[in-house]
Every structure is written in C-alpha cells, then in structure tokens.
C-alpha cells in the first residue's frame, strides 16, 4: 500500500507540472446556427428540413433519419446537443462503429424537451461501452411528429492532461471479488474522467480501456529500437529490453497482486471481523450469514421451502449450505414440509391466521416465525 501511495502521489505531483493549457478539453463543434449552408448531412424520410438562422429546423410526420459523416481527431466521451423544440420529439442517436456493416449501427434513445427556448442534452458516452469515437457515421432517427431546431452538436473529449493522469490513477483501481473472477480478471484499466472512473466497475465489461495496450506499445517500440540499434550500429541491447520487460512484468504483478490482497482485506473487513448478524460476504451482502444461521433449522430434515429475491446465486448456495436437506419451491408439493426459509422478501408477511402471505395469497399452513435475521429474511416453521 505504501508503494501504491508513493506511486499515486508521484503521478499526481507530476501532473501539477503539466502546463495549464493542456487542461483544455478536446472539442469538435458542428454548428448549424447562422450558417449559409451545412455540409455533410443527409436526410431520409423527414417531411421538412430547412436551414434557418436559429439552426436546422426539422419537422417530420414520418419516422426519418438525419445522418452525417464523422471523423474526429480526438476521443469523445460527452456529446452536447443544443436545440429548440416547440412541439418536442424523440428518437434515437446512432453511430456506425468501425468494422460494422453498412446497414448496422449502435443506438441509444434520445428525447427533445418541449420548449421555445434553447435546451441542451448531454449524452455521457463514457457510459456506453459500444461507443467508439472513430465511428464514420453519426446521426439521429427522429420519431414521427418530432419538431426540432438543431443548433449545435459538441463532441467533447478529455484533455491531454486527463488522458495521462486518469489512466495512471485508474491503474490501481480494483474490482471486487465476483462470481466471474474465477473465469477472468479485467486487469488494469484506463479511464479519462472522474465520472468514468467512479463508474468503472459498475458495468460488465467495465467502462474503461485495457492498460495492456500501453504495455504492448512500450515493449513494441523498445524492441524496434533494439533491433534498429543492432542493425545500424551493431550493438546489442537485448539485455536492456529484457530488463524493461522484467520491470513491466513486476509492475503488472504488483497491480494484480494488490488486487488479490484487496479482495482478502475486504473479506477480513466485512466477513471475518464482524459478528454474524452484520456479516456481509463479497457481492452477496448478508445472504451468506443468513444461510449460515438458517441452515441450522434444516438439520435432520429432508426438505424445506426456500424463497429468495433471486434464484441465482441464492438457490445453489442454500442447497449447498443445507445439504443433505434440499430446498423446494413454495408452489411445488410442500406437504409434510414444515420449515420455510425466506430471504430478502419484504413483501412476504404473516397474516392473522399465522399463514405466510405470498403475492397477496395465504400460501403456507399456519406457523410461527422462529428466527428473524433482518427485515424480509426469516425462518418460519409451521405448527
């Protein structure tokens, strides 16, 4: 951790030395206001399209399309759309990413608020894994009935400094231990803004780029240099190349090993050091502690009814914890089954007759709650 802190501090300190001018964001603006003509746009099936001083006025009775060739020289993580829409409208914002077929595109929904004054919608493309600033077509599909004056579209990308500082900061941002961690580990990731960094592991795949590309570039350039030096001045520097490789390997190991240690520290912090009532386990929250306690009520029994907010992973885990007692669903044959284990179902209550009410219907024979673990999680035994 000390090494990690030193690493981050050095990086942050060095970032302060970057000239302020570098902090300017990369921006490309397509303005349609006060223009004699706008080039590059194509329309399909739109009823009327007029260029007026306020912008490109579009009104359509049918679903139509407005598309433009795009070629950005910088990455883009936000798109600002400035418009006036007296009658409102909506549709899709779409783009054709590199490698896609002519008739294919990715799309996200977009809506235009009803207003006679200027409005702006900001699309946070950093949260859209499919977004690619190298897309060669960008446009809108407008729903029938839409009326909108498009004034300006601004494509904003991270500044030069952000492009360096955020990836370095994110290098040591760790995932949590999850069910997929046995199959793959994302590895060091790059983000380019605070928002993107905060959201990094909230989606699968993460909202960032792999750091591996940097490792490959560094090694590729170094190898090329070594080969050139050998060919031109006949001096051998392969030893230095392998020293560089070793340094990068150790850095990578430090990153991934730190993640493993982070997993263990989390286990210690939220599972091993807590009393059973407030234990959490990885991304299963309180379920594991609940199952640990509830399975004692299944001992010596063949079956019990198990109801949880989700099937996976709770059903399998409960089956394992309680084995050889096996869970059955409440809508199967529950005759002779006296123990009902309920997890995270706040909607299930006990009525005046002492029966469990599931989806508003009395479902179990009369019984009593024998153990309440937390609201919505309890063990019910029939009389």
């Amino acid at each position, binding site marked *: 951790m000390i090494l990690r802190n030193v690493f981050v501090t050095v990086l942050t300190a060095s970032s302060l030395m970057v000239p302020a001018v570098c902090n300017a964001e990369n921006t490309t603006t397509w303005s349609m206001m006060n223009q004699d003509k706008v080039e590059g746009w194509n329309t399909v099936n739109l009823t009327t399209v007029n260029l007026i001083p306020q912008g490109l006025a579009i009104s359509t009775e049918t679903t139509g399309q407005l598309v433009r060739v795009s070629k950005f020289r910088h990455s883009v993580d936000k798109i600002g759309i400035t418009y006036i829409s007296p009658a409102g409208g909506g549709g899709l914002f779409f783009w054709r990413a590199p490698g896609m077929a002519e008739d294919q595109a990715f799309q996200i929904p977009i809506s235009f608020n009803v207003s006679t004054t200027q409005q702006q919608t900001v699309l946070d493309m950093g949260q859209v894994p499919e977004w690619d600033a190298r897309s060669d077509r960008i446009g809108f599909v407008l729903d029938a009935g839409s009326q909108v004056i498009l004034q300006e579209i601004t494509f904003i990308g991270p500044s030069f400094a952000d492009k360096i500082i955020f990836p370095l900061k994110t290098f040591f941002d760790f995932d949590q*231990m999850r*069910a*997929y*961690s*046995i*199959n*793959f*580990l*994302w*590895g*060091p990731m790059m983000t380019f803004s605070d928002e993107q960094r905060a959201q990094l592991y909230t989606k699968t795949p993460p909202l960032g780029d*792999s750091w*591996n*590309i940097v*490792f*490959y570039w560094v*090694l590729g350039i170094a190898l090329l240099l070594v080969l050139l030096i050998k060919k031109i001045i006949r001096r*051998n520097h*392969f*030893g230095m190349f*392998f020293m560089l*490789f070793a340094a*990068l*390997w*150790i850095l*990578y*190991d*430090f*990153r*991934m*090993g730190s*993640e*493993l*240690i982070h*997993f*263990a*520290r989390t*286990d*210690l912090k939220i*599972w*091993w050091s807590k009393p059973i009532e407030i234990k959490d*386990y*990885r991304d*299963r929250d309180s379920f*594991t502690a609940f199952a*640990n306690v509830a399975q004692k009520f299944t001992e010596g029994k063949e079956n019990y009814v198990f109801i949880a907010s989700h099937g996976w*992973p709770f059903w*399998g*885990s409960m*089956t*394992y*914890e309680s*084995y*050889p007692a*096996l869970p059955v669903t409440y809508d199967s044959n529950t005759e002779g089954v006296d123990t009902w284990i309920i997890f995270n179902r706040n909607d299930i209550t006990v009525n005046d007759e002492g029966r469990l009410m599931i989806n508003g219907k009395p479902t179990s024979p009369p019984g009593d709650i024998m153990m309440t673990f937390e609201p919505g999680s309890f063990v019910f035994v029939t009389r």
Partner: protein
Amino acid sequence: MIYLLLPIGLALPTVCGWLLLRIVEGQTPVLFKWERWTAGFVLGGILTTYLIFLTEVTGIGSFSFLSMFLTQLILLMILGGLYWKNRSKLTDNLNLTTDNSSPWKFWQKIVAATLGLWVIAKLVSGFILLIGPAYFDDTISNWNIRGKAFYIHQELILEIIPGKGSGIGSYPQAIPLQKAWLAHLGGWHEGLVNSLHMIWYLAALALVFFALRRLMNLRWSLLGVYLLASVPLYTMHGVSAYGDCFLSVVIFLAVSWLFFAARSVGTDRMTFIRLGAIATGLLIYTKSEALLLHLPPLAVLVLGLLILGGMTGMQKKKTIAWYGLCVSSVLIPWVLFKRMNDLGFGNAKNISGMALEWHEGVLRAIGINTFWEGNWSLLPILFLGLVIAKWRTAFRSNLIILTGFVIVVIVGQLPIYMFTALYVEALNQTGYARGIIHLIPVVVVVTTVILERVMSDE
C-alpha cells in the same frame, strides 16, 4: 487447530505416493528428495482415491472413514512391504545440483527477497480467500457438494440433487473424495477441505522449480517459479476451490517427465518413462477433460518419442508396456463405469451428439481473454515472442515435447469452441480460460528455458 488435521489427513496418501514413486524409480532415482515428496502428495491423493472408488463400486468398501482408512492402510502396507523388500537398492537420493554460476550480487539478493516476500503476502491473502464460505459456482454445485455428499452418505452418489440428473456425476471423484477424507477427520469445515487447493498450488510452484532446477541454475529456477506465481488467473485458481489448478499439476508431471525421458539416456530415461506413465494413467482420474483433451496429445508425443527418440527395441517395448498398463488400468475401469452408469463424456456439457456449426465472435472473445484482460499478465506475448524468435529451440529440440503439447491442446480446443454448442463457454468466458490454466506450468517452463537460452546467447 482444525488445520492440524490437514497434515494428518495428507500423510497416508502422500506416503503412498512417495513409496510408489520411489519403488518405480528403482535403482536409478531421478527425482530430487523434496520433488518426490511433492509429486508423491499429488499422485498419492489420486491413487488412493482411485482405489477407494474401485472398492466402493465393486462392493468391497465404501466412503466411510473406516473403509477409506483401511484402503489407504492396505495400500501403504503393500507399497511399504515392496519398499522394505528392496530397501537395500532404494536408498539413494538424487541431490540437488550445486550452483556453479557466479555468486549472487547484492541487488539480486534484494530483488529475490522482495519478490519472495511479495509472493508470501499473496499466498497469505489467498489463504484468507480460500477458507471463507463457498462462493464460486462450481465449488458449490460440483467440487464441494460432491465431497459433502460422499462424506455424509458414505457412498458413491451420482445424482446429488434427486431429479436433476447425473451431469456432475460423470466427473472423476479424486477431488471430492480427498475432501471427504479430510471431512472424516474434522467434520465438514470449509477451511479444512479447501486448504487442499492451496497445497496443490504450492505443489505446482515446487514442481516447476525442481523441473527447472534439473535444467538450469538456482536463479533461473527461482525466476521460473516467480513467473508462475505472478500469473494472476493461475493464482486465483490456486486459491479457489476449483479443480483446474490440480489438473494442471498432474498434466505438468505427465508431460514434463516425458520431456525428461526424451532428453535422458539409458536407465534414467526408462525411469522417467515409468514415472510419466504413472502420471498419465492417474491423469484420467483427475478431471473429465483430461481424457479427451490431454490424453490424445500425450499418446501422440509418446508415439513420437518411440519413433524418433532413438530408443532401443527393448526400451520401446518397455515404454509401450508401462504406458499401456498404467493408462489401461485407470482408463478401462473408468470408462466401463461411465458406460454402465450412462455418464457423459465431456466437461461442462456432454460433447456427444452436438451439432457442428460456425459460431461468430469466438475468436474475438478468445483474443480479448488472452491479450486484453489481466488474466495472464504479459505471459502470452512473452511465450509467443520467445517461441517465434527461437523456434528452432522450441520445435527442433526435446523442448518440442512441452511446446508441442501446449500448441496441440490449444489448437485442439479451438474447434470445440468455434463449432460446437460449447461456444457459449468461450463467448461468456466461462470455460475457455480454464483450458489455459491447465497448461500454465508447462508454458512457464518453456518460457523460462527459452528465455535462459536467449540471455545466455546474448
């Protein structure tokens, strides 16, 4: 305190494994002292559980404590008797070669100590992860629940959940039975039954070290161990209750001993052949895919050694006999058992009867898993780069046994993912990486050997 039962539980299978290897080595020991103990632990665990399985299915024994104990005890007595009978010829040990290279420089000592401490820190963290409640899907639905079922019911149960079929029943029982044996000593305790996995991981590190030590000096051997210990997904499997790291150790023994047979001569060669044959036989009872993915390439490599290895007629006959005997004594009963119980062949899904069709996106998913995620660190480009740069060493020396095995298994897996319903395992990255886990110790040895050659040349 419960963890004190671990060495007690491992003692019988380890001693059985050690005795087997020592007897098989005969008068020409080729294994280092601690290498034999490590390999004995790995193979002894499979051998004893295989015999326990045989006693159960033939009605002679069961999975009760007494029956499991007696089976191991009888095996120990038989092997011990054989050892005792031949003790005068079996006393030699191969000594670790002395390091003739230059003494360690100060910075090398600092780097080695730092990395050593770092690996220990990761192992401690891994142990904390391993002894927690069961978490991963296959731990819950396969490895541990089967062990729990064998421990509780004390008999072989193929359908763990009635009415859910015998899918996981088609897997060999080596891992669950070792867990059941430990549970008989201390009750079903997650930490106790799971700590086996970390011992297998440590065994992988140790066996890679000893294999490299046979080929190079201490520094390079330690470097190889460090490479293995810093492959992230392999470490994750080393500290998780899954069967793939265990399988990787047995594969490594089977392939590396064949490799050492190829580069040895005379009696040493035949000792490695006998050891390799035993590891190959027991490989079948380790995990399902060994039968389909790893046994055929091994058979081809043995055949290649017979044809191109410069063996005498007698050596060829003995090689065929040893491999034939060891493989058939596990393969035939195991396949018969599967047939009699209508158990499938395959891993996650039964591969028989699958329709063949092209599945898009598989190669891309494999590329992402291999090069763009954190699973393997920089090992893929290091391995590929070295194999390409030094292709003569990789393919035109004895190293082809190791390199060839890796490439044949990887290339052999690709059509399974590209053309069968198992493509989902690649697209979702649920199965593909495990196939690579099996090969990592072999990959690391190839990488270290070629790297050492490159650095020596330079």
